[in-house]
């Protein structure tokens, strides 16, 4: 049960400015259905650079809907210059606060606003150019650094609450910790250097696993009259089938764990777990 303020409840039950402005001057799309929330913001801007209308469509939880609704209320009649300065905290405050686990909903609102303004001015959003740090939610280092700075975040949990990064498989936690340390150090006077560590997509992982099996594991097993086939890769779980002599060998478990798993962990990813598909 989330503790929502009356304002959040009100904007959730009676959302304002729902819909889409036809031939809008600016359109901002953020989030995705896979992530669990998404927002499409459309704005109308007049000749005096004032936002005269704003509408939204949101897929997401109560606080995502309320944040979007509140954002459109705030935007109407606002000068574009001022809208550019709007922060996620402004949205959260206007709602009388959000549970800290839900702060990412206000962040989504502000990102949609930036996207819509960029769409209007023809600018290219710098955020999208960062390096993806959290694969689960597609969050870039630049987005994370900004959330840390603007909201004075102090822990990985904070980062997750504000950007969702780290809230899935958790594999990016080390990178988040490093970003946090660097950014906080940067705030204290040192310029932050964005870490450009190489990340591995699922596809790359599977490719690498295949490679190691073909290049090293298979030839070794074949020497003993055995064979191995990659069956499936699901997250960190690698399923293989042992063939030939290996299949009937009572020490096949040892082969699997002591040899195959060890090799794959050494050469691909420390967290891999190899299982046999019989």
């Amino acid at each position, binding site marked *: 049960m989330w503790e929502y303020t009356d304002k959040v409840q009100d904007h959730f039950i009676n959302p304002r400015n729902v819909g889409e402005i036809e031939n809008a001057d600016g359109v901002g799309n953020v989030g995705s259905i896979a992530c*669990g929330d998404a927002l499409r913001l459309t704005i109308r801007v007049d000749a005096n650079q004032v936002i005269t209308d704003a509408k939204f469509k949101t897929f997401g939880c109560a606080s995502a809907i309320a944040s979007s609704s509140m954002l459109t209320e705030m935007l109407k009649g606002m000068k574009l210059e001022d809208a550019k300065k709007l922060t996620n905290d402004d949205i959260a405050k206007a709602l009388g606060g959000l549970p800290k686990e839900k702060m990412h909903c206000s962040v989504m609102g502000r990102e949609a606003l930036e996207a819509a303004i960029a769409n209007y001015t023809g600018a290219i959003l710098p955020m999208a150019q960062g390096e993806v740090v959290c694969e*689960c939610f597609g969050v870039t280092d630049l987005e994370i650094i900004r959330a840390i700075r603007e909201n004075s975040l102090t822990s990985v949990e904070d980062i997750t609450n504000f950007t969702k990064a780290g809230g899935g498989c958790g594999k990016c936690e080390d990178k988040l910790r490093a970003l946090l340390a660097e950014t906080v150090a940067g705030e204290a006077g040192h310029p932050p250097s964005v870490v450009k560590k190489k990340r591995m997509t699922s596809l790359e992982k599977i490719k690498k696993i295949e490679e190691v099996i073909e290049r090293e594991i298979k030839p070794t097993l074949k020497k003993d009259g055995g064979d191995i086939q990659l069956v499936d890769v699901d997250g960190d779980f690698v399923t293989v089938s042992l063939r030939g002599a290996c299949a009937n060998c009572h020490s096949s478990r040892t082969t699997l764990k002591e040899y195959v798993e060890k090799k794959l962990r050494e050469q691909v990813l420390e967290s891999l777990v190899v299982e046999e598909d019989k």
Partner: protein
Amino acid sequence: MTVLSEQVIYMDNNATTRIAPEALDAMMPYLTRFYGNPSSMHTFGGQVGRAINQAREEAANLIGADPSEIVFTSCGTESDSTAILSAIQTNPEKNHLVTTRVEHPAVKNLCDNLEIFTGRKYHVTRLPVASDGTLDLQRFKDSLTDDTAIASVMWANNETGVLFPVEEMARIARERGILFHTDAVQAVGKIPINLKETAIDFLSFSGHKLHAPKGIGVLYVRKGTPYIPFMNGGHQEHGRRGGTENAASIIGLGRACTLAAEMMTEENTRVRALRDKLEHGLLNTIPKSLLNGHPSQRLPNTANISFEYVEGEAILLHMNQVNICASSGSACTSGSLEPSHVLRAMGVPFTAAHGSIRFSLSIYNTEQEVDFVLATLPDIIAKLRALSPFWEDK
């Protein structure tokens, strides 16, 4: 804000249930006048011990066990931990466990931690499920090895209600000399169970899922099964679980077990019919809604339905406005940022997983309540879809 039970339509019985008035009546004397310690020598305490043993018989009868095979614990979670940890301790030379990808956290997290905190001394096979949530028996058979200490497979899934063929699986495990545990927290009281005819070694269940209080559980341990206690202490429960008995709750549980046995037919006829009416009604009137889980191989009270392109927490909050209680497998309600591990293991697409709602009924639900939900939910879904940027694209 306080919401009274008379005001709500409660369709969240897989989360917890109301205490049966008869069970509460049976408990009250043991919370007031009969406060003696069941282990005492005097009659005043000893009579509480007698009442506990009657509850033991009632619990045994519901699952076709012998009273001596019943150990009272503090909850379903404790029963699960006790069974699995006992099995690995009585088989110190074995390092492998078999379970599924859709277990309740009580088993799932225990297995995960066994792997992690022992530096992977233990190795766990987590069997996958098909898209309708069912398990493949052959795959189970093939997963068992000479190194397997125990297989732990839930009887009924708490999110989807899908039933696993645990009796068959227990037989297969027995043939290999492997212990078999089933987390039957959702199954006991909802479907007939007769353990005498099975090869199941351990079975867990929990009071608060069958109209007994929260904080009381049962572990069935088959006669002759090697056993090492989890809670060490006094000689209570014949030395199988230390700690002064939660007498009143045990007695309430006993009464609830007898009631459940009496209500078994009603659960599987009237409650099932209500569930079916609700399920078919929703699936037929709300476009882009789908059932999660096998249509028939399922508990009689559970319906897990996804409403595509809307988010579960938002649906629940709208339902809450009209005092309908249910659950969701969406990310926002799972306590993490990802939708339920059960739906993901079934490969339910994200468009649907985020918008899943679990309705779980009990004998206390009425047809009027089902009609009310059927009349209310289509508007809630339509209202949220009108907000959804993905819906108009359809």
